[in-house]
């Protein structure tokens, strides 16, 4: 039986916007297992982003519990959440979000800087992972010197470098043309086949269709497809 990576129990998130409280998520229950390739879909304003932020430990729920690898995340301090984000979660963004003044190698090394990995080890691991995404010959290029597809590969390398429990990809193909987008999706599939847990957040039904499991969020509630 596969290991459970994340378990959400009755997660609610309410935003206090002065006069009326706005309920972004209502009693979400969700289990994600190791090796899953999951898509979260939904129109904007559905609570899809809020769910991703909570799953990604960038935000805490108003009520309910979230267990990440058996540990209760919802009561952790900001510093503990930082450590969890650093070691157990990888992020891939629509706009790549690479640091512009650092070359690809340094960008990939960045999580290890905060993770306390020694400089020598950092370099070795970063080069290994760049080789895996096919960018080892571009390690000393700045992000703006690369194409969109290459930048997203570098961002994926950065997300994987700490060997996280799950990788979040927020509209990873949104800024890419169809062909490059397809290549990035291929890469995600390969990574999933290699055993990585991947959670894709998108509003594109075609992209979502390429995953193994889809969850639709509407008005803060889950509708499993």
């Amino acid at each position, binding site marked *: 039986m596969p290991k459970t990576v994340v378990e959400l129990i009755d997660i609610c998130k309410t935003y206090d916007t002065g006069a009326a409280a706005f309920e972004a998520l209502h009693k979400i229950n969700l289990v994600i297992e190791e090796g899953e390739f999951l898509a979260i879909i939904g129109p904007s304003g559905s609570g899809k982003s809020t769910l991703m932020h909570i799953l990604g430990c960038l935000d805490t729920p108003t009520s309910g519990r979230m267990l990440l690898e058996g540990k209760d995340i919802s009561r952790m301090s900001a510093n503990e959440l930082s450590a969890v984000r650093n070691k157990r979660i990888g992020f891939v963004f629509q706009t790549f*979000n690479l640091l512009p003044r650092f070359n690809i190698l340094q960008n990939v090394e960045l999580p290890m800087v905060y993770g306390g990995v020694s400089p020598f080890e950092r370099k070795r691991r970063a080069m290994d992972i760049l080789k895996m995404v096919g960018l080892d010959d571009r390690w000393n290029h700045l992000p703006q010197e690369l194409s969109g597809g290459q930048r997203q590969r570098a961002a994926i390398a950065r997300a994987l470098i700490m060997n996280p429990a799950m990788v979040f990809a927020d509209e990873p193909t949104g800024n890419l043309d169809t062909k490059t987008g397809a290549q990035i999706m291929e890469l995600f599939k390969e990574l999933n086949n290699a055993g990585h847990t991947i959670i894709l957040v998108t509003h594109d039904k075609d992209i979502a269709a390429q995953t193994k499991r889809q969850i639709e969020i509407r008005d803060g509630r889950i509708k499993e497809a």
Partner: protein
Amino acid sequence: MGLIHGIMVGCKEMWAHKMRSFLTMLGVILGVAALAAMFAFMEGMIADMQKFIRETGGVERVTCSSDQIPEDQLPFSSLNRQRRMKDIQALMNNIPEIDEFSPEVTLGRDYPVQYLNKTVRVEVRGVTVGELALRNYDVEKGRFICDIDRVERQRVAVIGTYPSDELFGQYANPLGRTIRIGNKNFRVVGVLKHYTAGMGGQNWMNWKNRIVFIPMETAWLCFTHNKDIPALDIQVKDTSKVAEISQRAQQVLFHTHRHISCLQMRTNEEMVENFSSRTAAFNITLGIVASISMLVGGIGIMNIMLASINERIREIGIRKAIGARNIDILLQVIVEAVLLSILGGVLGVGVSLLLTKFITFFVKENLSAPIVKPEQLLFAFSVSVIVGIVFGIFPAFKAARLDPIEALRHE
């Protein structure tokens, strides 16, 4: 987070905004330069003043000079008389702690002294042997005025290097030659040491060289035709007693002058005190000016750090998303601010060295040679580092408290 990473990020940021960083640093540079240069000039002034005090007899010297007679004593002022040898005798008998007396009869500060057809104008003073100790003179060649000269009213003179060089040339031997002071002939029996201090060709100790000494009694006989002692200095070697003894000396002289307060005792200690209180005031004023410029520099750093953070909100969001703790972001901003101020401090110390050289070169007169002390450069530099930390804290907190979600959304 490694400190090295923070420094690397800071250097990259500075390099990416070279002009902006330089302009920001300028405030610190000027502040540190002003502070360090001020220290150097104050140090120079203090050293010169100390030398001046030492060369004029140090704190062991008490000067007894005439004072304005108070109004209520004016009716009897005719009872008053000048100081005479009798006064010195009274001081000697009553205050054994006085080590040396130096009565002086100054003929004039620009008194003509001739040799053959050459004339120099120098200070001519009738003195006793006490002058050597009290005015810190040393004889280079020949001898000084001695008591036999005074008793016999000898027409002998001991001359400083200025009249010696002017009248005889630098290489001739003046000893035994006859010079004319006023219209009397004097034989040169000694030449004083050459005194030098200051810089850039300026010798502000030259007054000490522009001198001719003759025996006091000879001065009375040949020039003043009385036996008055217009100036009297006394020396008290035990410096802890100077104040007390000058008080007692005043009492004795008060008595010998029929209780008319026509005398004033001035110790060099007062001069030293006067001087140190003035330097303190100077230090405070210049310190305030330097602090204000450091403050301005610090505000500049704070301003630019706030701007830099505003530009890099997204970067901070990314860093937080991949695991940077609040303290990591806080430290990084402080490190960047400190880098700016350290670089400013280093450049400021450099500028201060140039500044002292520059000012010395262009304003030679009325200025003591600056003395640059390493510990004071270090102090000025550390002030700049502290400014960086202090003014980096507010922007750092602001950056550290950014919400990662908001920061990531920021365009």
